[in-house]
């Protein structure tokens, strides 16, 4: 009998598992896939390392910082700052037609860019920051207000509003077109005020640390152990039944499978329309270059681009992808210092919006053909906003909504999950909770904080053992 069974060995499940096992709870994480990470994973192909998910870790604070989500999660999991080996970004940019706003890990750069490109808006911009710095994550009644409406009160120029929304939506907005005010505040602080960083070895370093710590404190991890359904008796979950038919008993179950996905595990009577799981999915192209991107004149860490004054954040209905907007991530362009091998090649990753239904309904041949076709179209779109890197490409790979679904089992291949978040982590069953993307925090730091906070709030109180 376990104290808690955790479904999913992604960032949130592992973080929750560490908290619980550290405080002597008997914990088992069950993961359907043959590896950990969920949405944030990694693989090796043709002798090269690839990351899935991670572009950059948000909420960066320097060593010794005591405030902010990063410092908090390190304390909660008993990690040292050095364990994550975070290298800060160089400089990133939001690029719209005719206007570029640069930003870095000091909020001052973006503020000066706003003052330069939108001189009449800078006072409003400062007032907006004052407002969102004070936003309390726990004010749940304000969370779902329209961010678009709220920021109109501060920023008059629609172009600046779109340019500020673009990176924040790209890095964590499950809602189409608009964004929850709470999510906007959290994302604004994590990206524009705190900033971006990455371990040189990528997401694998973070995952390895989490797994190592989890095992050290006595947690049990079972891979290739998919959950077929919850065992429910008289309004309580009593455990899970695995695909193999094996039954695990637990006093509590914490699911990071997603809200719709978790409800489905509770039985057909709890099933929800799959659209409730969210509609936004992505493709990402990965190009290995024969040289570092800075050698072709590309020194920026992340570029968020949009090719018209209006930012379109919707599922593409008529096409497989919508490359009008995208994110160009250059994992080489972080300040790694001596750890990086300057002679090595480089990598360019480009993400655009995609339609899960269309990608998943293609037969194998068409799927391969469409991947090649869109790989080229996406590159073509991106080189309008960065130097043309295409003749330096030596290897490529690409993931689609179908890939995301295969790794995460998230309906519709969503990355940011359902537009409706379950901030308190509760479900209709008193001892079944959810964490991860659908609880409300997104990104790597967000997912880890989600696991920690739900474990603290519901599973570590006295009497819950």
């Amino acid at each position, binding site marked *: 009998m376990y104290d808690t069974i955790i479904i999913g060995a992604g960032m949130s499940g592992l973080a929750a598992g560490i908290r619980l096992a550290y*405080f002597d709870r008997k914990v088992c994480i069950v993961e359907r896939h043959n590896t950990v990470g969920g949405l944030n994973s990694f693989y090796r192909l043709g002798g090269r390392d690839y990351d899935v998910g991670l572009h950059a870790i948000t909420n960066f604070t320097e060593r010794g910082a*005591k405030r902010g989500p990063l410092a908090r999660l390190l*304390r909660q999991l008993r990690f040292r700052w050095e364990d994550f080996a975070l290298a800060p970004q160089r400089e990133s940019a939001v690029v719209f037609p005719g206007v570029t706003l640069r930003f870095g890990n000091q909020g001052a750069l973006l503020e000066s860019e706003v003052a330069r490109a939108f001189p009449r808006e800078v006072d409003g911009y400062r007032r907006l920051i004052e407002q969102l710095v004070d936003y309390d994550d726990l004010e749940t009644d304000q969370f779902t207000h329209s961010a678009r409406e709220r920021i109109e009160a501060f920023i008059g120029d629609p172009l600046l509003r779109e340019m500020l929304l673009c990176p924040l939506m790209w890095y964590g907005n499950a809602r189409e077109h608009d964004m929850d005010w709470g999510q906007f505040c959290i994302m604004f602080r994590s990206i524009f005020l705190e900033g971006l960083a990455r371990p040189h070895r990528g997401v694998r370093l973070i995952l390895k640390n989490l797994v190592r710590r989890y095992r050290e404190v006595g947690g049990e991890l079972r891979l290739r152990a998919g959950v077929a359904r919850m065992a429910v008796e008289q309004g309580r979950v009593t455990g899970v039944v695995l695909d193999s038919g094996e039954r695990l008993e637990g006093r509590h179950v914490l699911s990071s499978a997603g809200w719709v996905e978790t409800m489905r595990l509770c039985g057909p009577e709890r099933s929800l329309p799959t659209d409730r799981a969210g509609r936004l999915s992505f493709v990402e192209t990965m190009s290995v270059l024969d040289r570092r991107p800075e050698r072709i004149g590309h020194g920026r860490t992340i570029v968020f681009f949009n090719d018209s004054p209006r930012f379109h954040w919707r599922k593409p209905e008529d096409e497989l992808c919508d490359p009008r907007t995208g994110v160009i991530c250059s994992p080489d362009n972080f300040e790694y210092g001596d750890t990086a091998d300057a002679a090595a090649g480089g990598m360019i990753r480009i993400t655009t919006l995609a339609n899960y239904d269309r990608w998943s309904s293609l037969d194998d041949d068409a799927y391969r053909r469409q991947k090649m076709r869109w790989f080229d179209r996406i590159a073509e779109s991106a080189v309008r906003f960065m130097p043309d890197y295409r003749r330096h490409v030596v290897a490529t790979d690409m993931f689609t909504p179908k890939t995301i679904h295969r790794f995460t089992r998230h309906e519709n291949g969503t990355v940011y999950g359902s537009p409706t978040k379950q901030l308190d982590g509760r479900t209709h069953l008193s001892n079944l909770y959810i964490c991860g993307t659908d609880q409300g925090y997104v990104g790597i730091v967000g997912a880890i904080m989600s696991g920690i906070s739900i474990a603290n709030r519901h599973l570590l*109180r006295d009497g819950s053992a």
Partner: protein
Amino acid sequence: MTAAEIREEILDILSDIAPDEDLSGLEDGVAFRDQLELDSMDFLDIVMELRKRHRIQIPEEDYGALASMASTVEYLTPRMKDMERA
């Protein structure tokens, strides 16, 4: 444990929870909250570390007693007087 040993134990817990804090100048009569960068999650960890290390159950209504070092030691002394320091 004596009151002095309990104080040492609390310092040990604090240095575990907040390795970056300098605890040498901690004033016993002043609330932790006013001199350390600890949030509510960290306070919960003091309670849970006490439980993990010493099997002491602190009911939620008593959390207020853990506001400062002086009040924490005072609260814990009768509860820990028969324990040995590990």
